[in-house]
């Protein structure tokens, strides 16, 4: 369990670090700009919203733990 937690923590830190690096290379590069461009695609927007909603469903309404 600790290994899995550490792995996810490293991924979260990596997201922040890449954001910082990108901002240093160009002032106008932001995560919001990234999401704005990605989510102009209706197909991708639907996928992201479905994933977002399912996370809420999974942790609040559905079965959470397997096994």
């Amino acid at each position, binding site marked *: 369990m600790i290994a899995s937690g550490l792995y996810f923590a490293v*991924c979260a830190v990596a997201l922040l670090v890449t954001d910082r690096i990108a901002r240093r290379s160009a002032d106008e590069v932001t995560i919001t700009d990234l999401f704005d461009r990605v989510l102009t695609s209706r197909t991708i927007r639907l996928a992201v919203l479905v994933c977002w909603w399912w996370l809420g469903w999974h*942790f609040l309404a559905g079965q959470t733990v397997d096994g």
Partner: protein
Amino acid sequence: MSGEHPAGRGGERGHSSRDPAGDVLPAWGPWTWLLVMAIIGAVQLVRQQWFAAGLFLLAAVVMAADLVRRPEEGSHRSRIHLRLGVLLPVAAVAAVALALLPRHSGAMVAVLVPLGMVALVLGWPGDRAATRQVRWPPALRRLAWAWAAIWIAGGLWELAQVLLVNLGQDPAAAPLSDLLEPALEHRAGQAVFAVVWLLAGVYLLRRGRAP
């Protein structure tokens, strides 16, 4: 190929021989997301979570149908962009409900389903053809690839953990659900999750305006 910069933005540091305004979203981009949805649906089948499997697989079918349809077909209604002054109060009321209602209850379902429908209504409209004109500056493209790689790495780890649990191969395997469950069992943890989840939803619903 047009060389104009997006209005109001400065140029990037450094020098590039490519169009500084950047390339457009590759045509295969949305198809990869469709593949992701299909994979998640398949994993939910392995977990015997039929509702989740149906949700993701249905979404994949809808996405595929939308992608193969010619751009000029269908309606071209503009997206509804609600102001924060509208979204935040709604999110606040929903947060109270999601924080106080018992998890896995019918009442919780009764709150979540309308929220999903609202998100779908706000997120679906839009001219699919217009997305082909969105430019990607090189620095933003690099950030996108980096984030994609990290999310894929996290997703593959999660997939491995889920399969190990479901196949009984490793008792130490811990998907994200197992890690968060202890916190969500407490009212405070449930409230924090509800707030973060709703704020993420507000953030996502306000994105997607072509620059």
